[in-house]
Each structure stands twice: as structure tokens, then as C-alpha cells.
């Protein structure tokens, strides 16, 4: 891995949105010059709208602003230029800024192609008419992707709007050395899971490192328990508010979570996930449920032994669903509605959708994995090869609550789940279910 020596911020792409702001604020503060956003790098050259003159040039808006993803993205684009003969101008914007301005960006003078996320987050902008359907691209690249990946790339109208580049699984991490030393075995059912947690507690370990200061990490726990208990269709319907939040199924999810509470690291609302990952690294904690994009990336940042890090998919709760589903957030690319050169842009998307392109990108990435079927990436480490297996055995993957539902609803759930963590009782559960439903009504139906 060529990039293990590259200093990277704790905030990998799509992860610590607030964390990144901190980094920027630090820079701005130390430099004591200019407003915070002045520190946001806008490297690359063109700032939107360029490339209209030549039929063989496009612009690409990118939020891959951290050093490693930026390098990987540059490699991808170089490959695309070589293969298609299209001149591509990259417009890199700090990813936090990019996401905050997406709405005005797409309505203003967007680049031809832009980086974005699968799920409702993509479908929302497609439904607003801000993206161009790319069914003709998928007619050529469709065979490279599994049904699950194809479904992820479709808008609410059933047309394709998205070409994926990588994803990563949300799984339970552990240190192989700890399991070996204490004789623990990987649990596959809920009862084994709780029994293992009990044993760890007796052995003086924190069974689960847990953090939710940034609000979003605990949404993942809700997602996985809901997927295990109620299945994928239920989860997605709930996210789109086709099932009310006061439903019995949601109560069951929180009750299940209640069982887990005594084994989660206390004071999660005051801890950033990086610190939780550090308790796992230092072997004070036995397990941690989060994405590889965070935990494995943190191991690399802290120069902890990545080889010792292992993971297993969340255990079975309801045998009807087994371990069929998980959150595997997917990033990729879209074609803006105002693209100046859609024909050339589609050619580039076709290239990216071919499996070789993903490998070019992943050469610079130690925790994400490609989606193309039969993709061979020689640079994969053990985390990545097991990630591929874990994701490929899933019948469907969800994206993560803040990508699968309206962002306003995700914010509402952040507040409510933090309340649950502060005070995990049956009465809290009924209060937050009522509040979630009342807010969902105003957000989804007015």
C-alpha cells in the first residue's frame, strides 16, 4: 500500500462531516486569517461550466478532497482520459463544503459529472430534475454489477442515475489477538453475541466500544438491528415513511437494543468514534460495530496493526432474515441535468463502470472495496477481501440512515437516538417513537 505513510486527517471521505469542519477550523485558527471556509481547498482548475467549447472535454466536480481519495480519484480520471480520449478537468471542493452546497451547486452551473452517494440522497436530487438519467450507459455496463448494485443506482422513477465506484460494510470489529488469547469465538446468533459480551465484561473488557458524539454513528446500530429483526423491505419502507415510526416493529428494535445497552461503552454521547476505535485498538474494548471506512482507516491513521483487525457480520436475530442484509454505503458518480457535454460524460461513466477502472482507484485505498463483479484488485488487504465476501453474500444492502431517508428525518433520529442512549428505558422508547412519527409526518407529507 503506497499511501500508508501519507498523513491523512481522521476524517475520511463521507465520514466525519463535523470532524472535517474541526480540521478546517483548526487550520483557519492557526493561520488566524480569513473565515473558516477560506481554508477549504479548491484545487483543480476550472470552477464549473468549462469545457463547453470542445466536444471532447468535460468537467468533473469532486468532493474527494482528502489526500488519499484525491490521489485515487486522480488515478481514475487519468485512466478515463487515456481510455476515452476525453479531456477531464477536475474541480475539487472540500467534501464538507461540497455536500452543504449541493443544492445550489446543482441548480447553478454544475460540472458535467459530480461525485455523490447512492440511496435516497441520490434519488432526491434525481426526482427534483437535477440529474440526467443514464439508462444508455447502464445498457453497456449493467452486466458488471450485481442486482443489488443495480438497484442502488436507480432513481424513484426506475431509471438509472448513478454509477458506483466503491462501498464498505458496517460490521462488528474485533482484535484477532484478543479472541485468540481469551479463547473467544465469533458469535453468529444473538444469544451467542450477548453471552460473549457477558464474558468480556467479566474479563474486564468493555464489550463494545461505542461513540455517538457526532450523532450519526449510532444510527448504524438502529439500521442493523432493524435489518436483522424486520428485514430489508421493512427498513426501506420505514426510511421512506411508508411504515409509521410508531409501528410495533420499531418498538421491537429499541427493545432489542435495550438488551445490548449494558454492554455498550457508557457515555457514548460524549465520545467521538475515533476515541471509541482507539479503545478497541488499545484492547480495552472487545468489539466495535462500525464501518471499515472508519475503524480500519483509524487503525491506519494510528499505525495500529491492521493485520490484527478482524470483523464478522452482525449476528442473526430473526432466522427469517439470517445475515442477509447490512449497511454498505456506496459512493459514486452522477451526470448533472445541466451538463454541457453529456455525450462525452456518458463515455467516461461507461469507462468507470467497466471493472478495471475501480481497480485503478482502489490501488490508493486500504478500506473501501469495488462493486464490479469479478473485479480483481491485487492491492486488497485482508480487511478488503473479507469485505468483498461479506457484501457479496448479502441479498440486499442498505446505505445508512442518513442516506436512505430524508436528511431532515435523519437529523430528527439523531436527536431521538441520543435521548435513548442517555436514558434507555421503555418510556423513552415510546416518547421517541411518538416524536419520530410526528416529525416524519411534517417532513414527508406536510
Amino acid at each position: 500500500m503506497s499511501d500508508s505513510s501519507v498523513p491523512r486527517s481522521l476524517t475520511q471521505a463521507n465520514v466525519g462531516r463535523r470532524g472535517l469542519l474541526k480540521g478546517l477550523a483548526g487550520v483557519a485558527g492557526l493561520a488566524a486569517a480569513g473565515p473558516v471556509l477560506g481554508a477549504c481547498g479548491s484545487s483543480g482548475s476550472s470552477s464549473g461550466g468549462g469545457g463547453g467549447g470542445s466536444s471532447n472535454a468535460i468537467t468533473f466536480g469532486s468532493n474527494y478532497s482528502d489526500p488519499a481519495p484525491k490521489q485515487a480519484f486522480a488515478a481514475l480520471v487519468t485512466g478515463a482520459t487515456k481510455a476515452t480520449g476525453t479531456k477531464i478537468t477536475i474541480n475539487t471542493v472540500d467534501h464538507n463544503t461540497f455536500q452543504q452546497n449541493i443544492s445550489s451547486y446543482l441548480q447553478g452551473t454544475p460540472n458535467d459529472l459530480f461525485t455523490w452517494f447512492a440511496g435516497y440522497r441520490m434519488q432526491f436530487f434525481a426526482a427534483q430534475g437535477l440529474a440526467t438519467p443514464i439508462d444508455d450507459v447502464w445498457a453497456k455496463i449493467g452486466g458488471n454489477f450485481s442486482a443489488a448494485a443495480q438497484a442502488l443506482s436507480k432513481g424513484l422513477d426506475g431509471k438509472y442515475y448513478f454509477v458506483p465506484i466503491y462501498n464498505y460494510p458496517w460490521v462488528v470489529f474485533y482484535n484477532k489477538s484478543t479472541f485468540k488469547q481469551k479463547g473467544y469465538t465469533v458469535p453468529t446468533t444473538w444469544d451467542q453475541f450477548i453471552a460473549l459480551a457477558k464474558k468480556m465484561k467479566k474479563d474486564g473488557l468493555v464489550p463494545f466500544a461505542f461513540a455517538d458524539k457526532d450523532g450519526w454513528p449510532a444510527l448504524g446500530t438502529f439500521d442493523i438491528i432493524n435489518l436483522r429483526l424486520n428485514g430489508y423491505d421493512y427498513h426501506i419502507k420505514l426510511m421512506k415513511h411508508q411504515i409509521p415510526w410508531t409501528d410495533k416493529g420499531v418498538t421491537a428494535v429499541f427493545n432489542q437494543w435495550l438488551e445490548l445497552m449494558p454492554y455498550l461503552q457508557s457515555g457514548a454521547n460524549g465520545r467521538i468514534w475515533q476515541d471509541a476505535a482507539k479503545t478497541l485498538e488499545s484492547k480495552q474494548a472487545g468489539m466495535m460495530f462500525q464501518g471499515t471506512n472508519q475503524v480500519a482507516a483509524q487503525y491506519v491513521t494510528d499505525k495500529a496493526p491492521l493485520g490484527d483487525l478482524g470483523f464478522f457480520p452482525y449476528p442473526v436475530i430473526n432466522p427469517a432474515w439470517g445475515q442477509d442484509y447490512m449497511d454498505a454505503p456506496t459512493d459514486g458518480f452522477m451526470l448533472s441535468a445541466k451538463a454541457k457535454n453529456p455525450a462525452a460524460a456518458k463515455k467516461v461513466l461507461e469507462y468507470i463502470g467497466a471493472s478495471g477502472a475501480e481497480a485503478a482507484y482502489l490501488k490508493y485505498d486500504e478500506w473501501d472495496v469495488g462493486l464490479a463483479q469479478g473485479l480483481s484488485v491485487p492491492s486488497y488487504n485482508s480487511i478488503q477481501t473479507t469485505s468483498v465476501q461479506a457484501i457479496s453474500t448479502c441479498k440486499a444492502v442498505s446505505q445508512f440512515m442518513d442516506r436512505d431517508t430524508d436528511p431532515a428525518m435523519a437529523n430528527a433520529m439523531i436527536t431521538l437516538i441520543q435521548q435513548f442512549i442517555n436514558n434507555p428505558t421503555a418510556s423513552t422508547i415510546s416518547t421517541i417513537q411518538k416524536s419520530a412519527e410526528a416529525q416524519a409526518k411534517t417532513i414527508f407529507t406536510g
Partner: protein
Amino acid sequence: MAATPGELTSPPATARRRRWGRVRSLTTIDKLVVVGLLGVPLLLDLFFIWTPALASVVLSFTRWNGIGGLHARACSPPPAPSILQNGCWYGVQNYHQAVTIYPPFWPAVVHNIIWLLVFLTLATPLGILFAVIIDSGIRGSRIYQSVLFLPVMLSLALIGIIWEFIYSQNYGLINTVLGRAGNANAIDWLGNPHLNLWAVLVEGSWRQAGYVMVLYLAGLKAVDPSLREAARIDGASAWRTFWRIIFPVMRPINIVILVVTVIESLRAFDLVYITNGGFNGLELLSVLVTQNIVGEVQRIGFGSALGVVLLVISLVPITIFLSQTFRREGRA
């Protein structure tokens, strides 16, 4: 005490009459200059302050996700799907939802008020105390001055990060010193919703006290030393000298500090945003506005309604301040 501020500042009556006399004999160029100097700021003020403020008030009665245009049609009653409910007239629904079903709203109002009260009753008086002590000429006053002023030079975002190192549960200074950095008994300064507002207020006061100190120190240096001398000769104690002589003489500075304190409290945002994004015990109206408007949550109408609430709250101290100022000037 003879030296009341009114007498110090108001010009003699004859001078005032002369000034009005001059106004009548303005040349055309003078008039143009006056129109330019008043008109340009007025236009800027209207354009950059009043237009957005009024636009926010209008938007607060709509339901809009920021995409596409606004129209005058009323939103159809629920359960119409939200995607068809865009840019439409929503009446007072946003306000109604904010006060009834939006859980962070009332905590945010309460936190804004607590913030204001803590700044008024603790941080600002502490700054004044620092200034008075330093001004009394204690040894090493320059060092104290620099140390206390240091936080003012840092951005609030940076202050939030610095204090995070102090408060952090497992790796923070306080828990380490107390020997509680373990997992079971660590004090969750920033995560416990009953503690974190106060923890953040300590951060805010750390900066505010230094800020007030500098302002007050500048004022104290400008106080005529003969006043103090006279008080000393009359045998007044230090306490009495301050409250009966120095404090009243410093009225203009006191007003500035009061205004600064109110402004700093109402615009509080950076510290809580950097600490946890304004969730879980750190809700403030300014953060709720941001959460709903900036970023992917595009509830422009709802966020505007919250902004209008903040505007109304801000208008209370502003109105009091302006009416007081104008009344005094009218009397003078």
C-alpha cells in the same frame, strides 16, 4: 459627585444653536456629500440587512426545499406527498410545528436564555473584575493581561477544539487528573446533556471575560486620575471609589460592554457546533437554523421560521438599548 456624564458630554447651548445655523447655509456640494454619506450606508443597510431579514420573514410562511420557484398557492393539506408540497404558502404551520412537535425548539430557547444570563451575571462581571485588579497596578499585570487576553485572539472553533482536549472522557485532562479516565467512572463532560451546556459556557466565558477585560481596561486607563485622587483624599474606600466614581464615569464603556455581551450571547454558535453539532443538550436557535437550511436538510421555510424567532428575541434587547439611548440623547 459633580461629574455626571451628561454634563461632561453635552455641548453648551450656544454651541448647539451655532451648529443648526450652519446647517441652513449648506452649499450644494455639502448637501451632496451628506446625501452620499447617508444614502450609501442606508442603501447597503437596506440591501444587506433588511432585505434578507424581510425575505426570511416571508419564507417562514412557506414550505420550500430551495429547489424550483416559490408560488402563492397554498400547500395542500396532508396527506399530500411532500414532493408536491414545494414552494407553497404554508401559513403559520412552520411556527406551529416548531413549538409543538420539534423537540429541540424549547431546549434551544432555554439554552439561549441561560447563555445570555451566564454571560451577563458571570462572564462579563468577571472580565470587569480582572480589568479593575490589573488596573490597580498589581505586580506582573502585563503577564496577566496577556494570558487573559490570549483566548480572545483565538477563533471560537479553535477554542472548542482546545477544550475538547480538556474535557474528553477517556483522554481528557480533567478526567486524567482526577484519575477517572477509565471507562466506568469517567465524567462525560460534553456528552451528558445535564453537564455539557455548562461545560461549554465555561469555554465561552473563558473568552468573554478576556474580551470584556480588554475593553474595560481601555476605559479605566482613560479615567481622569484626579477623580481617584480626590476620592482618596476624601477617604473613600477602594470599593466605594469604584462603585460611586469610576463605574458611573465609565457609562459609555459600560453600555458598549452590555451591548457586546448581548450580541455575543445571541450569536453563540461556533462553540456548540464544533462540540457536537448542536445536538444532545447543546441546542441553540442559531444552530437549529443552520441544521435546517445549510447542507442537505432543505427545510428553508422551517429554518426561516426559527430564524424569525431568533430575530424577535434579539429585537428585545436591541429595542431596549436603542430606546434608552435615544431617550437620553433627547434629554441631553
